């Protein structure tokens, strides 16, 4: 109760007027880093390391968190060596898990954020979150039959679906197919086994690509695995999340049967390699200006010039990298700083478009 009163006071017009121009957050966050009047932030309350590559974080979001639908993802921002990095993670917890949220990150060998989290995330760390996003989610009207297919780290959104459905006491048949390298590389191995053992309607089938004979499934996804699932795709809703090869195989099978409408897909592409080869001048790609909805064929020219050539009028000043008037958010893609030749591939970062040229596809928030 006193907390609610405190929040009401901090959210008042008076508090806003007294803390102008910085706002209430900028003062309160110095003592309560997870506090914000509008932004979603969360404190790590537990960090487990279920496999050699993964880390499972339990987060307590602040009061601004609106919750999520099982299967959706959030953008989480963490700071590494002074730089805030943002990545998408699908909560793996039940959508009814109260005010806690569970995310699992799988360390990619050449990644930045996931190895950092695996090595360094600990209780007390404060992260920033977006609200949940994405259409890869359980519909409000739950289907009776479900087929959940995941590969590797793609387990998290379907894990959330399975947990949510079990939590709701879902009665219809659910088959859960999961593919991994071997049995030691499954972040939710124990929880999956427990759910399957505790719910007669849940059928768990595991396939290991590097551990022959260990799981219930052998080899890659195909018709045989589908039969073993004992779910009729035409009567069920299927959700699949994982590497491109798995998702493509599922998609092809469903398309052949004309069942695309009954299939939900979430696919993750490997991150772009850090040092892209620009020496050969191979920079052709598509420039997307997300806010204005304009697309253009990219050239090796400066982004500012190309944006103007595409009929846009982005803010600009010195046109020599001094004044930062043209700084804008690069949502996706690689750019080269023409002053240093350095290529940056990080998603969601601020760049000066007067001194950067695209390398391949680039999406800007203009």
């Amino acid at each position, binding site marked *: 109760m006193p907390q609610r009163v405190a929040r009401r006071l901090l959210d008042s017009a*008076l508090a806003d*007027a*007294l803390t*102008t*121009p*910085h706002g209430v957050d*900028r*003062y309160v966050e*110095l003592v309560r880093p997870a506090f914000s009047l509008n932004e979603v932030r969360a404190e790590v309350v537990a960090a487990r390391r279920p496999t050699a590559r993964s880390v499972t974080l339990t987060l307590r979001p602040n009061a601004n968190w609106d919750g999520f639908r099982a299967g959706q993802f959030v953008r989480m*921002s963490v*700071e590494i*060596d*002074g*730089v*805030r*990095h*943002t990545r998408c993670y699908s909560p793996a917890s039940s959508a009814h898990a109260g005010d806690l949220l569970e995310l699992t990150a799988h360390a990619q060998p050449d990644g930045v954020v996931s190895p950092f989290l695996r090595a360094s995330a600990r209780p007390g760390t404060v992260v920033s979150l977006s609200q949940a996003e994405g259409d890869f989610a359980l519909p409000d009207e739950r289907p009776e039959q479900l087929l959940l297919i995941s590969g590797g780290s793609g387990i998290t959104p379907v894990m959330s679906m399975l947990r949510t459905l079990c939590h709701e006491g879902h009665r219809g048949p659910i088959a859960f197919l999961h593919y991994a390298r071997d049995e030691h590389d499954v972040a939710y191995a124990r929880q999956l086994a427990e759910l399957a053992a505790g719910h007669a309607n849940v059928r768990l089938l595991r396939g290991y690509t590097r551990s022959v004979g260990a799981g219930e499934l052998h080899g890659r996804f195909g018709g045989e695995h589908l039969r073993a699932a004992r779910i009729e795709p035409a009567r069920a809703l299927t959700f699949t999340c994982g590497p491109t090869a798995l998702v493509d195989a599922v998609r092809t099978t469903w398309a052949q049967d004309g069942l695309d409408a009954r299939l939900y897909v979430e696919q993750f592409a490997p991150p772009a390699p850090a040092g892209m080869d620009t020496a050969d001048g191979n920079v052709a790609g598509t420039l997307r200006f997300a806010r204005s909805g304009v697309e253009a064929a990219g050239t090796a020219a400066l982004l500012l010039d190309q944006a103007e050539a595409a009929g846009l009028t982005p803010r600009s*000043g*010195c046109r*020599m*990298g*001094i*004044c*930062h*008037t043209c*700084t804008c958010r690069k949502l996706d893609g690689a750019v080269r700083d023409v*002053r*240093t030749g350095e290529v940056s591939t990080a998603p*969601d*970062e*601020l760049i*000066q478009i007067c001194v950067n040229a695209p390398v391949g596809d680039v999406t800007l928030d203009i």
Partner: protein
Amino acid sequence: MTATTPPQLTPEQLDAFGRELDAIRERVVADLGERDADYIRRIIKTQRGLEIGGRLLLELGFLPPAWLAGTAALSVAKILDNMEIGHNVMHGQYDWMNDPAVNGQAFEWDTACPAEQWRHSHNYVHHTHTNILGKDRDIGYGILRMSEDQRWHPYYLGNPVYAVLLALLFQWGVALHDLEVERLHSGKESWGDKREMLQAIWRKGRRQALKDYVLFPLLAGPGAPFTFAGNLTANAVRNVWAFTIIFCGHFPEGTHEFTEEETEGETRGEWYFRQLLGSANLTGGPLFHIMSGNLSHQIEHHLFPDLPGHRYAELAVEVREICARYGLPYNSGPLRRQFGSVVKKIVKLSLPGRGGGERAPEPTAVASEPAPAAPPARELVAA
């Protein structure tokens, strides 16, 4: 150019000079990280702490020790907010952190000038066109005669008076700076053209004044006059300090001005050269540098405006060495000497002389209808 003739470098030397400075910049950019993030957060935390402490003490402003301590804390908080935090963050010095709290385009500071207008007039106009007469509006702020190349007019007899007023009301001077009032006088633009800007200044200024002069005093109840006086003093202290530091950046004896013709189509090396010759440093201890927002390293700031200010002290050693090798001057001195020479210049230039009229280029603006209480008709070369 004024005063002494600047040293001459061959185009090849200028290119090499530019490459050496580029190399410094590249090295620092690659090294940016936790150290810089920790630094700016520590400063921000100190500033917020001082601000909260100062304001609380000023609520008890009827007690003289609380008033003094509160006013001092709030003055320092405002100086840190405007200079080491606001000015530097708005240059994009911490944009690489990707943290919305220190994002150069989103930051707003505790002063009357709307950040958006500052970013244009300072980051773009002043830093790109530093010390180019007719382009850099920081030369005299459209009010003072700060260069012999500005043609003299009887209006400038008031130069020292205007300077004192500008120092005391600096935050409002800065706020109105981007309006280019002299263009209104000359009829080049009408008040209607400036409506949006005026509205932004009014919105920001009103919120600032409401906080400092109405709300915090009212919260003190019967102690309101003391709180009011404390806030007024803190704003004035910040104004005078910021004016002092900023006027030492480009106006001390030995800094050079340039003409538009000289700087047309300049190379990267020439741009660095102009930034160096147009700027002057202040010597002092670490605390002095922080309180000046590291603008005491004005030379390094103008060479590398988007590198974190707390790095300038280290870079200064290298920049000095490079300048020595190329035989270039490196204008640096203690505050009293540099400011002394600025005061001398303000007083001296209030009078005609030293080639004032003859050497001036064609006036760009002639006021036609001087309004009462406004500056008389005058010619503003540095408009």
